[in-house]
């Protein structure tokens, strides 16, 4: 399916903005998680600027689509997407991870508007997203539930308990996205604790799998989300091949930039993403 070229250009523009904000926030805080924030920029942008049925003026709207950032350390990416969508003023970003600010280091649903679930301890978000999807069914609502998982995160056992449950409940209103950037905190996923064959695993658990060869390509993501929404009687997972630290040359693919390994290089990172 081809998409409106104007939409694609607009989403690319938003993604660029989100990417800049991620680096800005982390530079202002002097700490945070650039790698996993940057790998999810396009996914979050497409979600917030196209896929999700939400209303920033009414963050508590009961019929809104839900989103869970299960890899809660990607908070900067989520906050930036929420900000560009109009949930809160840009000034808030400058107080990320700081005392008195509303943008807590890992998402806090009681502090920031638009945050549907608190997270930070990995492996728990898929279960919460299942709960949201089930609630929609019990309440006869047609909102959908989305959840973003890290590829290191799916080493947690709870993920597979949830992976077993969602197809059993036939949750076709649930879409998971796997941020397959190949890197976790201590190193490469393939070296620390391999997850392959990852697509086969989700299929074996009963999920409809959609591979997205380039999780930074807006059009590919749009196509993947369309496909996910069309699936009936079972949940779908978009397996998005991404680059950890995408957009900052010295951060790309580097486990050392999961967190901020050298605050002195953050200005250079900011310059790079501004030039993009």
């Amino acid at each position, binding site marked *: 399916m081809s998409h409106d070229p104007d939409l694609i250009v607009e989403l690319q523009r938003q993604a660029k903005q989100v990417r800049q904000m991620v680096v800005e926030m982390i530079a202002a805080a002097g700490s945070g998680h650039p790698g996993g924030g940057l790998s999810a920029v396009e996914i979050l942008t497409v979600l917030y600027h196209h896929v999700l049925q939400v209303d920033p003026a009414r963050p508590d709207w009961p019929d809104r689509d839900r989103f869970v950032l299960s890899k809660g350390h990607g908070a900067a990416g989520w906050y930036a997407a929420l900000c560009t969508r109009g949930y809160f003023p840009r000034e808030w970003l400058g107080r*990320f*991870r700081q005392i008195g600010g509303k943008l807590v280091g*890992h998402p806090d649903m009681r502090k920031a508007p638009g945050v549907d679930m608190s997270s930070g301890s*990995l492996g728990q978000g898929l279960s919460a997203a299942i709960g949201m999807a089930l609630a929609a069914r019990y309440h006869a609502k047609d909102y959908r539930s989305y959840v973003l998982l890290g590829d290191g995160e799916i080493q947690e*056992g709870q993920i597979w308990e949830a992976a077993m449950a969602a197809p059993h409940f036939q949750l076709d209103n649930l879409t998971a996205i796997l941020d397959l950037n190949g890197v976790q*905190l201590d190193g490469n996923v393939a070296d*620390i604790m391999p997850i392959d064959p990852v697509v086969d695993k989700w299929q074996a658990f009963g999920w409809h799998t959609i591979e997205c060869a380039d999780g930074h390509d807006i059009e590919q993501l749009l196509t993947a989300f369309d496909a996910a929404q069309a699936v009936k009687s079972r949940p779908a997972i978009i397996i998005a091949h991404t680059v950890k630290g995408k957009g900052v040359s010295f951060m790309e693919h580097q486990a050392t930039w999961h967190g901020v390994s050298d605050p002195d290089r953050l200005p250079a990172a900011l310059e790079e993403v501004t030039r993009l």
Partner: protein
Amino acid sequence: MMTFEKIAMRDAFAQAAIEALEAGVDLMVLDSDVSKSTRSTVFGKAHPERFLNVGIAEANMLGIAAGLASAGMTPVVNSFAMLLALRSLDQLRQSIAYPRLNVKVMGHYAGYSAGPEGPSHHAIEDIGIMRSIPNMTVLVPSDAAEAHQAFMAAVQFDGPVYLRLARNPAPAVSSHREQFVIGQGYELRAGVDLTIVGTGVMVARALEATDRLAASGVSARVVAMPSIKPLDAAIIERAARETGGIVTAEEHNIYGGLGSAVAEVLGETVPAPMQRVGIRDCYAESGEWFELLDQYGLSVDAIVAAALQVMERKDQVGVTR
């Protein structure tokens, strides 16, 4: 002015683990994808054959440790304190504490020391949880030197031990001590009007509060309590008898931690006016470590205020020391 330790507790731990292995302890160090944060990677680089990274799978890590310990090894598991106290708690209880297996549990980034990561990463319930589990020993060092000693004591002790470590260098308060004895508290400052019992980084703050109190004519004794379980009941009983009032200070929720443990002893021995300095049953926010301590009721001022309250209550109930 406090002098700060040059190294953090986690670096002291990594060094101690290397020393313990080289001294012949049948050590196995495990981590769950936070080895750069916990510094277990330093041990792993020195002794790769004795290091296992199990990925982001804390429950599995505890289970593997149970198996290793059952076969006679001394596994040392590493992760963030809040994850070990909560995420893999059932595995700790069923597979380690219940069968009394020799596993050392290293709870890193404890209290507010994960700072800007926010409440999801702050460990404020771990002491209470660990203390309530039969067979567990619970140690809370105040600084890097004590962390090193406590680790050595832990690996020489046969049984499950929880060691609670802060992320960043802390003020040095313990380094003059010869050795670490599990179950022992230490009087750091003599005093006659009341006793401040502190643990972890709050020991340094208790010492500062004492200086402040001395200026207003109150002579406060300071007892450091790095061993929360077993607790040094004798030193508390003596403090209550000799000074007549107690303040506890801990970087932990007000329920279940040091304050609760001390109150239990006082209630059953020498009841005395007491105030607890701790987190007032809430989750905090992002912020720098010491900023959060000050904001959430753990400031030096808070200890001073609690001490003055105890003095007032002593007057009211007519405690003559």
